[in-house]
Every structure is written in structure tokens, then in C-alpha cells.
């Protein structure tokens, strides 16, 4: 007979593990990655590969040589960060920009806090925001699509149409520009390329992950089905943005963008489905999660409508990340609490 093992109960463990969860997130991100590869071909592959590789290598090196402990790249969390970072960058980003992003994400936003689970802010978003304020020209504006971006497998007609239409700027940036010029909303929306169908399936403006709302929704549904995330955060963000933007739109439809346009644009879906729902940087309880989502929604619309940037999701999520320790004070409903009070 073997030497008996003795341990406290429970003696069995469920099927879940960190690696499996991260694997599920990667699978959920695949549709978005595939869509960007479909349209941009080699440059998209280049972007994703460099980003993932850089994140994994940085994590390994930092854990091995700076933190002097066993490396945990096996848990796939660095891969998730890599993919998310790639989806947050313009497709034609130069390699050094991706490297800087990966270094910021893994080195500064994740490892300085103590690694997986300890970081206060979403690593990929920190990287995106650092790049956005450091290299605004590369991250937005006309440098967005290099004409040689390579429509390898792509539907070039659709792509070029969208490209022409948005004249190189992101749809939100374009709208903001036009509004500043005094053009009314109705006229702007008449511009070809801004139709909802196009936004839903292939919105050519924006970063790699913003291409297709349908791909992102597919990933979100996968995560829900696999019970990786609960829908509260995402739904409360989308609902808040819709309601808040809707109120503004009803107030003056010539000045404010309509709510559906808000929802489909500027990485809101990517942020709501994949960035805000990051376990580490979101609250634990349903109550906290709803408040977290509402906060992100409000800040996003505020920045988009009244701020200097056309885009606000990243900032909104980072700001709300900082409130998570506070939101975690919302305790779950205790089984025995209400009865205790009487």
C-alpha cells in the first residue's frame, strides 16, 4: 500500500484553473484577431505575433532575472495581455512601438505590482494610454492606415471605400473634427462608410480590435457560455453609454452623436467585453461590478463628447480601475445577515 496522503477537506478540485480561463479568453479573442488578419493580412499577423511574443518574453525575463522566482508564463496570462495589446494598437504600428507597449504593459503595469493578480490597472490599457500620449501621431490620425497595409486576403473594395470615407481618421475622430467645423450631425452621418452595417462588420477606422463588432460580440458570448465572466460589467457599461448618449442626442441631435454610433465605435465593445471584465482589475461582487460599469460608461461619454480626445474608453476603464479596491468594500449579500439584524 502507498503511504497514505492526509489533507484537510475538500479532497477534490473542480476543473477550473488559471490557464484554462486564460485559454478561454484567448479563444474568445480569436474572431477579432481573425477579422483583422482578413483585412490587413501580414501586417496584422506581424502585429499580433510581435506583441504576444514580446509580452511573454518580457514576463519570462523579468520573473527570471529581476524577481528571481519561478516563471509563470505557463498560465497564459502574458499571452492574453499580448493579444489585447495587439488589438489596441493600429495595425501598421512599427515593431518598436509594439515592444515599448509590451514593456510598459508587462514591466510597469503588471510586474512592478507583483505579477498576475496584484496589478491595479489593466496592463494592456496602461500600455495603450502610455503610447497614445507619447506617440499621438502614430496612434491616431492619418498615419492610421498605411496604404500598403496589404489586403492579402481582403475585400479590397470594401476596405478602400471605408478608407476613403473616413479619410484616415477614426470615425469618432472624424465626427468630432467635422462637428468642430460646424457641420451638423445629420450631414456628417450622410458620409459614406459610416453606415451601421459597415460599423457592425468592418469598421476600418481604429485599432486592430475595433474592426468588427460582430467578432467581438461572438467572443463575448463565448466567454459567457464558458462562464468565464459574468455579464454585469459589460452590460452596465453599454447600457449607461446608450442611455447617457441617448439623452444628449435627444437634447440636440444636430450636435451630439447618436447612441448606436457610440456603441459601435471607438473600441467601446472591445473595452466593455474584454478590458473592463479583466478579473484582476474589476470588482468581485455583482453590486460593485454594476457600479464599476456605470462609472466607465459615464466617463466614456463625457470624454468623447466634451473632452479633447475623440476616444475615452481606455481612460474611463483606467480611472475606474483605481476605484476597484473601494468598490470591493461592497460585500456580497450574506446568507445569514438579514436574519441577524432582527
Amino acid at each position: 500500500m502507498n503511504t497514505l496522503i492526509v489533507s484537510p477537506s475538500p479532497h477534490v478540485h473542480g476543473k477550473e484553473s488559471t490557464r484554462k480561463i486564460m485559454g478561454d479568453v484567448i479563444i474568445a479573442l480569436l474572431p477579432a484577431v481573425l477579422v483583422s488578419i482578413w483585412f490587413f493580412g501580414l501586417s496584422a499577423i506581424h502585429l499580433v505575433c510581435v506583441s504576444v511574443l514580446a509580452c511573454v518574453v518580457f514576463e519570462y525575463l523579468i520573473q527570471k532575472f529581476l524577481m528571481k522566482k519561478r516563471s509563470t508564463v505557463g498560465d497564459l496570462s502574458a499571452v492574453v495581455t499580448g493579444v489585447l495589446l495587439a488589438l489596441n494598437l493600429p495595425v501598421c504600428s512599427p515593431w518598436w512601438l509594439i515592444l515599448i507597449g509590451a514593456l510598459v504593459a508587462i514591466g510597469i503595469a503588471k510586474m512592478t505590482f507583483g505579477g498576475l493578480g496584484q496589478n491595479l490597472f489593466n496592463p494592456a490599457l496602461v500600455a495603450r494610454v502610455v503610447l497614445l500620449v507619447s506617440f499621438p501621431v502614430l496612434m491616431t490620425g492619418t498615419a492610421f492606415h498605411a496604404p500598403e497595409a496589404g489586403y492579402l486576403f481582403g475585400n479590397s473594395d470594401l476596405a478602400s471605400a471605408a478608407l476613403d470615407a473616413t479619410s484616415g481618421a477614426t470615425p469618432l475622430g472624424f465626427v468630432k473634427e467635422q462637428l468642430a467645423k460646424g457641420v451638423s450631425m445629420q450631414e456628417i452621418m450622410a458620409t459614406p462608410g459610416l453606415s451601421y452595417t459597415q460599423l457592425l462588420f468592418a469598421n476600418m477606422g481604429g485599432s486592430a480590435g475595433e474592426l468588427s463588432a460582430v467578432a467581438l460580440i461572438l467572443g463575448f458570448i463565448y466567454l459567457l457560455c464558458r462562464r468565464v465572466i459574468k455579464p454585469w460589467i459589460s452590460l452596465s457599461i453599454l447600457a449607461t453609454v446608450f442611455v447617457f448618449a441617448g439623452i444628449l442626442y435627444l437634447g440636440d441631435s444636430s450636435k451630439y452623436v447618436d447612441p448606436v454610433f457610440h456603441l459601435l465605435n471607438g473600441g467601446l465593445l472591445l473595452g466593455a467585453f474584454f478590458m473592463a471584465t479583466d478579473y484582476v482589475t474589476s470588482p468581485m461582487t455583482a453590486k460593485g461590478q454594476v457600479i464599476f460599469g456605470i462609472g466607465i460608461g459615464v466617463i466614456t461619454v463625457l470624454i468623447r463628447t466634451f473632452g479633447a480626445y475623440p476616444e475615452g474608453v481606455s481612460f474611463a476603464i483606467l480611472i475606474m480601475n483605481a476605484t476597484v479596491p473601494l468598490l470591493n468594500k461592497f460585500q456580497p449579500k450574506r446568507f445569514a445577515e438579514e436574519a441577524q439584524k432582527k
Partner: protein
Amino acid sequence: MNIIIFTIATLAVLGLLLAIVLYIVAQKFKVEEDPRIDTVEALMPGANCGGCGKAGCRAFAEAAVKEGVGSLFCPVGGNAVMQKVAEALGQTIEAKDPQVAVLRCNGNCEKRKKTTRYEGVASCATVASLYGGETDCMFGCLGYGDCEAACQFDAIKVNPETGLPEVDEEKCTGCGACTKACPKQLLELRNKGPKGRRVYVACRNKDKGAVARKACLNACIGCGKCAKVCAFEAITVESNLAYIDFTKCRMCRKCVAECPTGAIHEVNFPPRPAAVKPAASTPAAAAQAKPVQPAAQAPKPEEKKVEIPVQKTE
């Protein structure tokens, strides 16, 4: 010009007003405290270990001023500090013998085989609440280092070779934190003894001899030979376990030679003259007595080294 004067005047008045407010508040919330408390606290080692039974050094100082030094003792500072404290308060106290923590288990991995394997949080308290322990001796050390975690002076380390914690006498202050942390009550504060020499029973197994022996070759089997040989009535045997009263022990070491299992340890004695060897009563004990150091030692060089750390420095 007017502006400057106005500004200066305003600030001056404001400053004055605020100073008055501060003064009133300071008076109102003033805490009357015996200044001697600060004096005593300054004399304390400042470890805040709680070894004296108070919450920390400040609490000790308060108690010393209020209740007198007589009933208090700072194990960390020892007699030197206590004398200073007594002096500062104009009292006199008797010197106490310095104490050191001693492990009353010598069931190392070799002599006390593991019969089960524990899997779970590395904590003695958890193991103890779960079952008797990995070995068949349920009185012995569990080896998960709750004492090590409790020690604030870095004086206890679990030796991975033997699976037993070892006390560094130099660092041990005798605060007693480890004695409280050990779920098996294996650590005992004993007088450090003259030149650091001590004799003690390194076992707490209360099982009958055969059962104890089966679980651990180094266990005290309660045979009572030590009690018979002791001329000072320092040794008592109760429920199959011998105990040496350190206030009565005169360090003759007869019991050490007598013990058939090597459960009685002696530390910091000079090497025994070779003539002592035949004194060992049984062949088994003689075999165990062979190593240069005490008969009690398990024949493991690493263990020996740490058991007598002071000897090197002396």
C-alpha cells in the same frame, strides 16, 4: 504700499488667532502622563515582542511605573535592562536566570519515520487540528515551522535535514513566543544554565514504552533509569515520560549516559573523557554514545553542529 501693509497685517492677525486656537486645543486635549513612563520605555529593547506578557514595550513601561517592577520581567533585555529599569524607578529587584527555548523532541526524519504524507497549508496548527501528524508519534514535532514564524528574533529555523527546528542560543531571547505557537507544546523555556550548559529530556511522548519506541527510536520510553541514577531528585517520570527539573539539576550528566534511547540531551558541555563510555548501560546506548559529543546525540554531524552553537564561540 498700502497693499503690502494690509497683507502683512492680515497675515499677522490670522497667525495670532490660529496660535490661540492651537493653544486652547492643546490645553483642552492634553494627556497627563507620568514622565517616568518615557524614561522606562527608552531603556527597553524596543522589540515589542510581548514576551513579558504586555502588549509591547510601552505597555511594559506603563505597568512598571504603575505596579512596580517586581512582578515584571523583560526576557529580551534580561537582567541588565531590568536592573536599569529598577534603578530608574528607585526600586530593587533580584536577578533572574536567563532562559532559552529548548525543543523537547528529537525525533528526526531518520529515527522517526513518516507513515503518512500531509498535503495542505504548511502550518503546524492546521496539521495538529487535522490529525496526529505524519509520523506515528502524535506528541512529536510536526516540522511545519509555526515556531519559526512566531519568532521575531530569527532564532528558530527548521532544519530540512532533520525536520526539526533548531534554536540559535545567541539570538534566542527567551520571550516565549514559540512556546505559545507550538500546538504540541514542544518548546520549553529553560534556564540557560552555567556556561550555557543544560541537560533535558528531548521528548514529550507519553505513550507506553513499546508504542513510543515503535514510533520513534529516540523516544523516551519512561523506563525510569534516569530517575534512579539521579542523586538530586531532579528527574520525575510521569505517564511514561521523564522530566528534568532544571532548578534541581546539577549537571552531573549521569542520566544522559543511562538513557537507553538517547532521549536525554546535554548541550555545551566539553567533550566527555573516553572513560565515560563504558558507563553506558546497554550495548545500544553504548553504540549511540560513540560519537564524540553527548551520548544523546543522534549520530548526525549536521545536528551536532547546531546543537552546540555556543561552544564554538566560547
